[in-house]
């Protein structure tokens, strides 16, 4: 919403500076986006007289002009075709910043002739795109005077950003009312004009709606003015429209624009001679078309409210008029429409057809329905004034919707909600200045131009925004405990622990989109229909991710393409099995790519399954869960290498994590080559540790007797997992066997095919005495027997 200072002062009697006004506007919720003061911007540009203009000695298209600036005569080289002796133009001295180009003008020599300034075009002045020649000023323009002053560009233009709840401020008068309420001057009195009808309106008006859709256009007022002479509107009006970025068209059209901008009351004018039969509002019929004033033809649907006559659709109600019945310079009889259109339907029409117009902007926010008749009267008065003619009586179909409502208001609520003490009288006085009327029992009636006000809280907002939010005292929030209690949930602690653990293990945290391409999701088990985005921002982000891996792999590919070939990355974030709240899981997911940076020591890390497994165990440990109590199975999902991956689970259903090298086909889909190790830890599935009554650790039980280590080598089927052998050895005596470590695995020469040699070291820790050789041998025999029984292994 834009307006000029003088325009505002038409409604607001004030001596306040533009700075004060701008500051107040922002303070009361009408946020100022910009204040443009052309008088200041164009101050260096002055009126100059071209004394002479001779052909440039070295260039056909240039002229050498002697310019009288009022203080001295200067030589200027000019390329404009209209530069000639005896004209008056706009002069800029060397050193002036040219708004149109953003450059500082320099004293220069053009093709060997000195030039001490410039005669400017409108484009160079930043006024328009006009650049066919330099600006020509009237003969009586006083030489040396500032250009802006001479052409009346001294009016600062203020632009405010309106929140959607303030339709009343889509008109300058509404802005003035708010400013007056805030104490910046007084709102000038305004009496709606009295129009004396000279004849009977000949255009019948109708509203053709069902009961259910009648609110589309509840009131339609119309009047004819005959014998008008349409032409350019007065200079002051043209100037105003131009100042806010509108193109003046003709007096009749400019008046409707003025009504929109000044009074937030959009109107429409028709050439009455082009209307056929009854003009009426109705819903469009499917397939109907209309050529609108923007020159485009729109196909309509039956939700759209149109204005029509016997010939068909004339225009889009509340959005845009039509070409067929528009006014022109030849119009002599004009029909004025002033109607009310439903905000919701108007917004829908604009959205469906893709039309943004000044009318839509106002109607979709909610135009004051009570302004229907005063609005048309004021427009009629202006038409009679600018275009002559005589007015008919007013025909009104329907009724303005009843907006009357009262709110019981307790002024004490201002202090309760805002913490600032306001005298009840002051609160009511503010409301009164805003157009609210209050009776003794503090029943406050809402003016018809404020569709946003419905309850006490709304009135509190009205009061506090005028009082000023800066008056709200900063008030410490009472503490709930002197030393704050811990607030993180077990799950939040897990997420934090997982992130910092993985980072400490050399992985870099990434955050990638929660959506991926459907084709990518398919590689990771796919997603149900319920997880497809109906309106994705792009086709490759159309499915909620079933795993974090596709995002990380795509990121890895981008990094590899940039030459970063060794990397480790993780993300702790959501993944989805379905669209219901319980079907979103938090996974700690990571990848390791490459064999480590090339280096002299040759020892590097490996992007292999054991690295991934180590990452998983580290995350579990950080979350307070020992991986020892989980079972390792070899059934990781299809996106892993079938022989180099595993799952860590508690029971058949409860998967804690997957880990392993990724399947080459998956890597190929991401244009990556392996090996790449990956892991996914499902943080929600970890068992929640029971809260303990104390933080005391269990007693440390150290034995003072000598521990004994014995090594065993087994020959076993290659398919047997090491874990089975370790488990069998451990279970021989859970008290005595302190630990079992695997220290050698060998397949190949010397070992029969299909078998492997696996060596374990067993540490025995007696608790009450030193073991004798015989006792050690007895345990060793039991271990060999147990391992043989469990796995078919033989001792080597």
């Amino acid at each position, binding site marked *: 919403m834009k307006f000029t200072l003088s325009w505002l002062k038409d409604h607001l009697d004030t001596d306040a500076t533009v700075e004060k006004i701008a500051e107040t506007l922002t*303070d009361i*919720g009408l*946020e100022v986006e910009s204040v443009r003061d052309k008088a200041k911007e164009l101050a260096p540009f002055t009126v100059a007289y071209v004394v002479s203009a001779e052909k440039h000695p070295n260039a056909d298209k240039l002229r050498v002009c002697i310019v009288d600036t009022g203080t001295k005569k200067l030589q200027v080289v000019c390329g404009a075709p209209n530069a000639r002796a005896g004209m008056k133009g706009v002069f800029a001295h060397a050193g002036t910043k040219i708004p149109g180009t953003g450059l500082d003008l320099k004293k220069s020599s053009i093709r060997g002739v000195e030039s001490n300034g410039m005669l400017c075009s409108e484009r160079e002045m930043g006024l328009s795109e006009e650049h066919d020649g330099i600006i020509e000023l009237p003969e009586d323009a006083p030489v040396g005077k500032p250009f802006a002053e001479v052409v009346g560009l001294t009016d600062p233009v203020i632009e405010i950003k309106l929140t959607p*709840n303030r339709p009343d401020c889509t008109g300058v008068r509404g802005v003035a009312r708010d400013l007056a309420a805030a104490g910046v001057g007084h709102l000038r009195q305004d009496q709606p004009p009295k129009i004396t009808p000279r004849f009977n309106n000949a255009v019948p008006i109708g509203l053709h709606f069902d009961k259910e859709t009648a609110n589309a256009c509840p009131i339609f007022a119309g009047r004819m003015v005959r014998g008008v002479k349409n032409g350019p509107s007065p200079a002051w009006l043209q100037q105003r429209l131009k100042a806010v970025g509108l193109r003046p068209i003709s007096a009749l059209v400019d008046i409707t624009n003025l009504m929109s901008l000044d009074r937030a009351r959009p109107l429409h004018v028709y050439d009455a001679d082009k209307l056929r039969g009854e003009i009426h509002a109705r819903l469009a019929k499917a397939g109907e078309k209309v050529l609108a004033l923007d020159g485009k033809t729109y196909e309509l649907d039956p939700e759209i409210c149109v204005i029509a006559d016997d010939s068909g659709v004339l225009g889009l109600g509340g959005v845009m008029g039509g070409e067929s019945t528009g006014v022109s310079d030849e119009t002599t009889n004009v029909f004025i429409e002033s109607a009310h259109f439903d905000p919701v339907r108007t*917004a*829908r029409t604009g959205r469906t057809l893709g039309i943004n117009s000044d009318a839509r902007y106002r109607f979709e926010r909610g135009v004051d329905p009570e302004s229907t008749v005063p609005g048309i009267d004021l427009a009629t008065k202006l038409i009679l004034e600018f275009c002559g003619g005589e007015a008919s009586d007013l025909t009104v179909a329907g009724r303005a919707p009843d907006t009357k409502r009262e709110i019981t208001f307790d002024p004490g609520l201002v202090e*309760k*909600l*805002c*913490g*600032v003490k306001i005298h009840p009288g002051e609160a009511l006085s503010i409301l009164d200045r805003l157009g609210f009327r209050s009776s003794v029992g503090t029943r406050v009636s809402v003016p018809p131009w404020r569709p946003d006000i419905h*309850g006490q809280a709304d009135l509190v*907002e009205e009061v*506090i925004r005028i009082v000023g*939010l*800066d008056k*709200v005292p900063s*008030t*410490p*929030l009472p*503490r*709930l405990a002197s030393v*704050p209690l*811990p*607030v*993180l949930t077990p799950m*939040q602690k897990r997420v934090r622990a997982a*992130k*910092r*653990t*993985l980072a*400490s*293990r*050399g*992985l*870099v*945290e*990434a*955050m990638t989109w*929660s959506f991926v391409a459907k084709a990518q999701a398919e590689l990771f088990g796919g997603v149900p229909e*319920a*997880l*497809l*985005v*109906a*309106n*994705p921002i792009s086709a490759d982000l159309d499915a909620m991710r079933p795993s974090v891996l596709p995002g990380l792999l795509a*990121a890895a590919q*981008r990094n590899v393409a*940039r030459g*970063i070939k060794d990397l*480790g*990355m993780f993300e702790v974030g959501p993944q989805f099995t379905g*669209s*219901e*709240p319980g079907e979103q899981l938090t996974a700690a997911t990571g990848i390791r790519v490459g064999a480590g*940076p090339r*280096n*002299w*020591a040759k020892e590097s890390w490996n992007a292999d399954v054991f690295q991934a497994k180590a990452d998983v165990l580290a995350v579990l440990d950080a979350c307070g869960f020992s991986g020892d109590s989980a079972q390792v199975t070899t059934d990781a999902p299809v996106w892993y290498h079938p022989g180099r991956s595993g799952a860590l689970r508690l029971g058949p259903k409860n998967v804690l994590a997957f880990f392993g090298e990724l399947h080459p086909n998956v890597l190929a889909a991401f244009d990556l080559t392996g090996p790449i190790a990956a892991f996914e830890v499902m943080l929600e599935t970890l068992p929640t540790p029971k809260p303990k009554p104390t933080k005391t650790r269990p007693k440390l039980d150290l034995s003072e007797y000598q521990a004994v280590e014995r090594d065993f080598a087994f020959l076993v089927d290659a398919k047997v997992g090491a874990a089975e052998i370790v488990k069998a050895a451990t279970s021989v005596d859970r008290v005595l066997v302190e630990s079992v470590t695997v220290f050698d695995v060998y397949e190949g020469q010397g070992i029969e095919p299909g078998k492997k040699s696996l060596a374990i070291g067993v540490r025995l820790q007696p608790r009450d005495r030193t073991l004798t050789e015989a006792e050690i041998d007895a345990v060793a025999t039991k271990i060999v027997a147990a391992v043989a029984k469990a796995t078919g292994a033989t001792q080597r």
Partner: protein
Amino acid sequence: MNDLESLEREALARVAAAADEAALEAARVELLGKRGSISETLKTLGAMSPDERKVKGPIINGMRNRVTAAIAARKTALGDVALEAKLVAERVDVTLPVRPEMQGRVHPVTQILDEATAIFAEMGFAIAEGPDIELDDFNFTKLNIPPEHPARQMHDTFYLKAKSDGTRHLLRTHTSPVQVRTMLAEKPPIRIIVPGRVYRMDSDQTHTPMFHQIEGLVIDETSHLGHLKWILEEFFRAVFEVPQVEMRFRPSHFPFTEPSAEVDIRCDRSGGEVKLGQGDDWLEILGCGMVHPKVIEMCGHDPAKYQGFAWGMGLDRLAMLKYGAPDLRAFFEADMRWLKHYGFSALDVPTLAGGLSR
């Protein structure tokens, strides 16, 4: 006597002449071994008369002790030389670089969230979370956003495919549905902050289709705008680690708060970077207000009894402002160079006691 003296002289010369440990050992065997010359001399003591032994004993034993000591000394000297040679041979080039280690980082959004958590936890706020895929009812209706509101349109909000019953879920456009979930589940007093991923149909220089918000909610019987102002003042001062942050509250409009305000903080934008707490510019940083009575009512509480406030801001934006990361899109591109530059060490856990950042 001369024999003994010359024997000792010869013995000591042998020891001194031993060039390495093997030669020294050979000398030791020849001198002190079972049949060594000194051992043989010692044996002669047995055949002597007690008087003679009294005289010769100390002399011969003295000789043996001196030779033994000489051998030990020589052994030490030879060991030192050998060790010296070994150490010289073991020299490496210490100017070589160390073995490469991977350097992990946490994302700046994680860091700023941990910072915000530290501050708000200190003020007694819990952290509430909710699903990314939301019900229309929680994301819009219960927040007093009417069905025709522009935010509900397909060009602003991501919707999932409609289910068989015709309803469709959406990707939450703000973290506010967690306010609804919390109010429906809990009794006041409520003090929560809600961080999380949110989604909007936006993609350009300064917008991404997914970003992070953090919002706060206080519901009780007395909390008002003045408390909100204090919380925000304290928060911004603490999170930006500056002595003071000047804020400006501007009246604004949101469907779920009444009165509503937007908050700007004073900054200096000259020189291409944003400096907080100085300058003449204002930077819009968050939206807030008193929770709309209708929202309180729709979430199951009596608006005549309970009141409170809420605020919300961009978490990524907070990180951008504090740490000077210029481009929001880079937050989600997972460029290792960016992550390493703007990321944080695993051990940089923000605490109020130690200062939020290094």
